[in-house]
């Protein structure tokens, strides 16, 4: 059986458009709210969904996602709890691919083999482990492969020609192009930088390529989805959620609606991009 990720990109190719991949942080600001956002994303136009697994020390994330992770941890987020969210989501949606993004230590603490098996059983399709370059992937990659999970790798502007094949060979599902040398939610790449970068990667792989880091506006998402195979939007959505919270950091009646409205706006732009 083709994976949900491969099936979804094949369908999008047939449609002639790129993917919108919105991001949410598990348990941000509480389990129920993040579950409602997750449940609402496909109808709002999400083609794939990326869920952040909160970690105390997110080395590659800027202040917006750091704060989301801290809210999630305060609300009791664990890997087990995040997998339970995906399992619940699969009760209503068996087609939209779900990617988990996080850092290695909580996974090692959970047990890499058990995590891969439990994630696959919950309905997760792929993993992005930020601090696990191909050189260190032996701890998790064999277990992920055995469980049928894709390992989605980040390619950065600093990834040189010599290194590119090594990283691509260790990737499956799709390739995540980090548009800037920097952390999440800080700045955006210029359109011409992306237009130069994607063909460089395309020459080395048949995998779909998606762009993240600094994709904030509908126009940027549309452009990213046009020059590559998809746009990942994270900090801009988290920012909207954060601004909807009350003074104590709790969700308000408006929180879910505002985030999903933004997803819909992004989706519309991505769908109109070609």
């Amino acid at each position: 059986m083709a994976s949900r990720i491969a099936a979804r990109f094949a369908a999008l190719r047939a449609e002639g458009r790129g993917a919108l991949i919105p991001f949410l942080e598990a348990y941000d600001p509480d389990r129920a709210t993040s579950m409602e956002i997750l449940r609402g994303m496909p109808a709002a136009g999400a083609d794939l969904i990326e869920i952040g697994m909160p970690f105390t020390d997110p080395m590659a994330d800027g202040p917006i996602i750091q704060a989301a992770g801290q809210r999630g941890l305060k609300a009791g987020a664990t890997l087990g709890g995040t997998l339970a969210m995906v399992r619940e989501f699969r009760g209503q949606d068996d087609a939209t691919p779900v990617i988990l993004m996080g850092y290695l230590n909580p996974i090692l603490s959970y047990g890499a083999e058990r995590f891969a098996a439990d994630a696959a059983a919950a309905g997760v399709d792929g993993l992005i482990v930020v601090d696990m370059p191909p050189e260190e992937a032996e701890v998790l990659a064999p277990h992920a492969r055995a469980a049928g999970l894709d390992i989605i790798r980040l390619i950065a502007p600093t990834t040189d020609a010599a290194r590119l094949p090594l990283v691509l060979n260790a990737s499956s599902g799709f390739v995540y192009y980090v548009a800037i040398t920097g952390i999440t939610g800080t700045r955006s790449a210029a359109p011409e930088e992306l237009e130069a970068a994607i063909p460089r990667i395309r020459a080395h792989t048949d995998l779909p390529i998606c762009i993240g880091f600094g994709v904030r506006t509908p126009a940027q998402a549309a452009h990213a989805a046009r020059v590559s195979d998809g746009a990942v939007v994270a900090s801009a959505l988290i920012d909207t959620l954060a601004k909807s919270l009350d003074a104590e950091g709790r969700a308000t009646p408006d929180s879910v609606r505002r985030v999903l409205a933004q997803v819909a706006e992004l989706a519309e732009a991505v769908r109109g991009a070609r």
Partner: protein
Amino acid sequence: MNKPLTRPNTYRSGPDAQGKFGGFGGRYVAETLMPLILEVERAYAEAKRDPAFHAEWRRLLTHYVGRPSPLWFAERVTEHLRAKAAPGHGARVYFKRDELNHTGAHKINAVLGQILLAKRMGKKRIIAETGAGQHGVATATACALFDLPCTVFMGATDVARQQPNVFRMKLLGAEVVAVESGAATLKDAMNEALRHWVAHVEDTYYCIGTVAGPHPYPAMVRDFQSVIGEEVRAQMQAAEGRLPDVLVAAIGGGSNAMGLFHPFLDEPSVRMFGVEAGGHGIETVTGHAASLTGGRPGVLHGNRTYLLQDENGQILEGHSISAGLDYPGVGPEHAWLHELGRVEYVNATDAEALAAFQLCARLEGIIPALEPAHALAHVLKIAPTLPAETLIVMNLCGRGDKDIFTVARLLGEAV
């Protein structure tokens, strides 16, 4: 996932090509940083083979830092401990006086090596993390000397409690960035330095202060700090005509300890103690900073090592009276030596360190930093139990000027 640890023929050949000491160390960083740390590794491997690089570093150590630092026979401490010991007991206690280095601690040894490397690599600016401020001051000092812009990341909590060092860094021309994220202490400063590095990859060198972080930092910082142990070997030969029997050093990240221990690792007669910060006692959750005796292996800041973490793999804050020791991790080579049993890792509490701090001041006329006060606290425990001919060397790796306000407050004195 621990590889079975077999006893090596030598303890001094690590790390392997992957930057591993047994199962510890490695390069657990985001892809954006990978090409950079590989570049640092290549540049360091070349510099290491270049006699001109070593000559320049040695020149700085001699004429700028003031090395070799003395090996001091602490006669009054020795007599004090013998008074309590059984007949024929009470080891001879020596201090390796790295607190006499320019900038007041051992940190400058590795900073100068790294700044020379950064110059060689053509880097135009330097960043560093700091906890108590000693590494920040050392880095700011070297950057002033070499006319390089310097940015030091320091947790906002530490900025508030280490004002004199913040001011020193500013006097030296460095920019100090107060890090508000997380608990706003050393680990958060390191996170922020790594984030900043990712965003300034082209022109910036990250000068790490301890034997942690991604490969090659643990090995590189160790190599530079090994000047401490090499000097001790020669100085003890001159003083006593033989090797020391026991080495004792405090462990935060573990750079002063690694520097003292490494040249002696293959001498089976030399026992080594690494003294972690026991804080309020290692049985208290988040009340200590003893990663090896109170933590378990995991991955943080680019390396696999022992960490303070909860049951879900979330990193815990360490606590210590010493801002230089309250780091939730430890250098990966220490993790390896711990599992092999080559070095014995113990801890001293805040109260024990405070008592040792005062004793050192009164008996030797030396105000130590709170970090080596932990090492001294362990010396006070073991020296009376050892035969009188035993030679102990304790690394007095920093001076206590920075700590007098903390100590005064704890002793109820107004300064």
